[in-house]
């Protein structure tokens, strides 16, 4: 599966970052010719995915891959190295980029959007930043590309260019930049000054030399500094960003951007604090319960939203906090669950967003209340929606089952029954806010006519979009039956194991 084996392994990292950049440049150059531009986008995405596959292969073979770009300061450089968690995230992001590009072609053309060249270009830039985040080998590199990701997605969020988009963009940029500068950068600098290193090190970099109150404070700063993880009360940007075109919401606000947030938290917890030390930090529990509160509260908010994308956005906020909770449970199994949730939530939520976008393109309906009997018109889309919803809820035979399973076991292992209850209640809430949508679509008739359904009634989204939806919903199923490669990858993360008595 490694078609790049001829290359020096560490070159692969450089390539994963550079290939999307080249793609972005080509997109701009070929902007006049839409067909060529889109082919380039897809080709770039495919090449990138094969590159990440190559890196995955090398990771399983225990090959060390590291590369350094420039020395920023003495002892601090912009450098990249590969570790399993990053590979996991890179796999998800690069695979879903292909799908999203295919979907976007159908969506953008079906919708006759303007400025498509800028759209595809910024998309590629964002993916490049995501790859750099995945493979960053120290906090500085992570921070730099975290900020670049915010900036490169800003034009995507404000794509529509109208008043709403502007307001959404303002909230988006305002919250993400403010939290990252005021908290994250502050925490990074404090870490740098107190420990003298920012390198991601298995087992953490804090020693007894740092006072426990400092470390406790830093944990809070890091959790809130990574605004992309949408921990309450800094979650407002995510619903605000829903003004973006749906492919953007799908990839960036179900996968790339938000997952970059929780990924950063996971990475910081594993490689800066160290899982074993986590339970000794006094603020861990505080943040854990804030995470748990976010899970519940945003589920409740989601129930009140009639706008489909807004409901999905709050659902995302809630699901992201699952990952934060998993990270802070200080149990190796919960951690495995959190890492898995990055994957399973990604495929599930992207399916839901794709469906929402398809519905919007075909029927121009945004609100759930208008979607009665939509199942007659768009049966395939609504079936896919059901699959995605089941996966998010965590019912077999969908991928989401695994991550929730491990999270629950982790909560038991950590002896935190409250978290267990929160997870259970939240699953019920998921049922309450997701399932009514397909039920309404399939079983509530729009009017009194009782004709029997026939294929001729259907008018699905453009075929590229439909293809993308099919792929992601099939993925939801496949990952339930065949999660081994992902689980093996998760087990490679230092200190993380899916075995009950595992540990390191």
């Amino acid at each position, binding site marked *: 599966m490694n078609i790049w084996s001829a290359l020096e392994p560490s070159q692969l990292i450089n390539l994963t970052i550079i290939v999307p950049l080249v793609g972005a440049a080509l997109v701009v150059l070929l902007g006049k010719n839409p067909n060529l531009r889109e082919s380039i986008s897809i080709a770039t995405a495919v090449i990138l995915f094969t590159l990440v596959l190559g890196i995955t292969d090398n990771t399983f073979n225990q090959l060390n891959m590291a590369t350094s770009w420039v020395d920023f300061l003495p002892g601090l450089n912009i450098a990249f190295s590969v570790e399993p968690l990053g590979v996991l995230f890179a796999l998800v992001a690069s695979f879903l980029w292909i799908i999203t590009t295919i979907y976007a072609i159908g969506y953008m053309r079906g919708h006759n959007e303007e400025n498509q060249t800028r759209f595809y270009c910024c998309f590629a830039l964002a993916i490049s930043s995501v790859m750099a985040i995945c493979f960053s080998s120290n906090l500085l590199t992570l921070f730099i590309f975290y*900020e670049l990701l915010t900036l490169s997605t800003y034009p995507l969020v404000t794509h529509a260019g109208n008043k709403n988009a502007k307001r959404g963009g303002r909230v988006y940029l305002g919250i993400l930049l403010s939290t990252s500068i005021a908290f994250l950068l*502050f925490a990074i600098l404090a870490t740098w000054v107190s420990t003298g290193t920012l390198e991601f090190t298995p087992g953490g970099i804090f020693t007894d030399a740092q006072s426990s109150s400092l470390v406790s404070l830093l944990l809070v700063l890091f959790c809130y500094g990574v605004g992309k993880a949408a921990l309450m009360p800094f979650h407002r940007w995510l619903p605000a960003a829903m003004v973006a075109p749906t492919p953007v919401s799908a990839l960036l606000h179900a996968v790339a951007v938000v997952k970059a947030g929780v990924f950063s938290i996971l990475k910081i917890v594993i490689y800066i604090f160290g899982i074993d030390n986590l339970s000794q930090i006094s603020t861990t529990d505080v943040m854990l319960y804030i995470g748990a509160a976010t899970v519940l509260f945003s589920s409740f908010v989601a129930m009140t939203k009639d706008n489909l994308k807004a409901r999905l956005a709050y659902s995302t906020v809630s699901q992201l906090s699952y990952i934060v909770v998993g990270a802070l449970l200080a149990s190796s199994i919960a951690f495995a669950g959190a890492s898995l949730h990055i994957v399973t939530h990604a495929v599930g939520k992207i399916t839901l967003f794709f469906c929402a976008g398809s519905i919007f393109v075909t029927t121009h309906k945004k609100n759930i209340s208008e979607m009665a009997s939509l199942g007659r018109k768009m049966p395939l889309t609504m079936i896919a929606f059901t699959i995605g919803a089941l996966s998010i809820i965590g019912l077999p035979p969908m991928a989401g089952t695994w991550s929730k399973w491990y999270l629950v076991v982790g909560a038991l292992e950590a002896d935190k029954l409250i978290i267990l209850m929160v997870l259970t209640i939240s699953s019920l809430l998921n049922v309450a806010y997701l399932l009514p949508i397909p039920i309404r679509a399939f079983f509530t008739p729009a009017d009194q006519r009782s004709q029997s359904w026939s294929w001729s009634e259907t008018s699905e989204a453009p075929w590229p979009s439909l293809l993308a939806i099919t792929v992601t919903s099939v993925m939801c199923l496949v990952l339930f039956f065949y999660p081994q490669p992902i689980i093996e990858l998760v087990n490679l993360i230092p200190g993380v194991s899916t075995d009950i008595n595992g540990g390191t």
Partner: protein
Amino acid sequence: MFEQHSPVLPIILPLIAAPICILLGRSQLAWLFATFISALGFGISIGLMLTTLDQGVLSYSLGGWEPPWGIEVRVDAASALVLCVVTGISSLVLVYAKESIAKEIDSSQHTLYYTAHLLCLAGLSGILSTGDAFNLFVFLEISSLATYTLVSLASDKRCLTAAFRYLIMGTIGATFILIGVGMMYMKTGTLNMLDLAARISEYDSSRTLNTGLAFILVGVSIKLALFPLHMWLPPAYTHAPSAVSAFLASTATKVAVYVMVRFIFTIYGAEYVFHTMGMDTILLVLAIVAIFKCSFMATVQSNVKTVLAYSSVAQIGYMILGISLVSTLGLTAGLLHIFNHALMKGALFMAVGAVLLRTGSVDIKAFQGLGKQMPLTMAAFTIAGLSIIGVPLTAGFVSKWYLVTAALEQQEWTVAFLVLAGSLLAIIYVGRILEAAYFKNPAEGTTYKEAPLLMLIPLWILVFANIYFGIDTSMSVGAADTAAQWLTQPSSSPATALSVNMGGATQ
């Protein structure tokens, strides 16, 4: 022979060239000549910087009179660093000025503009390289007088009152410095900086010296527009011709900061100023208030040049903050910000000048829709704006990084947090302008051309410098670090200082 005299050349060249400029008479010729001289000065400054980084201090006795009797020209790493900034920005601004002043300054006064610019450059270079406290005052006044003229050259009548206000404040500031220098002389009987330093350190505490220090610090604070003595700056930068704003914003106040550094660290000694006199707390508080008050003022202005002017005052707060942290790292951060801020503010004012040239206005309304109509100018403005905010991979980020590190090193957690929080206000004032440029539609029926090439080239050189020094920091940080090491070493003899410096670099 040439090399031997190189420390004095950055002063002498523009000083001699200025009157020649008038004699040349024609605007075109004067432009070419002034640019050439300035670029020559830049080349020499770079040479000086490399030499000082390599050999330590360069001393030159004017007229062959040995210091402390004669006037000494003394270039060390700190002076060379700021000298490079000043001459470099001056050259770029001169290239830029040709198109820019065509619309903003009456054509009969173009040669006068170049003359005044060269005089100002000579004054600034003089301040930077002199080793004599009274000489410093004279050069300060040469540059200031040229500056008042430059500000008043704009065609808008409001520049006159702005220049007059600047003149009154500037003269009071300079006279305060003169009083302070007089008091130092009364007590020590010398004016040579090294001599002063040696003799001041002999006194434990002297009321005359204390009063002198107070006068000097207040005088310099007026010149560098430290809050609350900054009231002259916003109108001056707003109404001056754009090329002048770009030049002054990135050089004049920086040189004043340098003067403060010189008086505090070289002459009085940090120990005396900060511990005996307790100036660090005063400066720290003023700096933080400046950052917040003036950043806030910047967010509510409608004239973009005023926004940038208030932003300058806030950024000066960052420099003073670095100095007031009383550590080598803090001083490094302050000096580094002098360098980086010159790059950003120069680029921003140049971009605004280009907009003024095309649209005839610098009101925020004039920026509406410019993202499409002047894409290159606005892209440059965006990048420089991000640098002001302190986004990674720009020069501004490096400054912020060092400032916060320095604050944390001193256990000043609140200060570190406030520095970062202050940049949030920068997001607002830069964001407002960018939003107008990219999201608002231009007024009906207006189409503007992209700025001329001669303005875009220097603008983009600065923008690329912003990015370059945000990624490869070895040069800027190295120079600032060496300069800070130099300034905080109490030793005066070049040989010992050099060895200390080399030891310090490996720490």
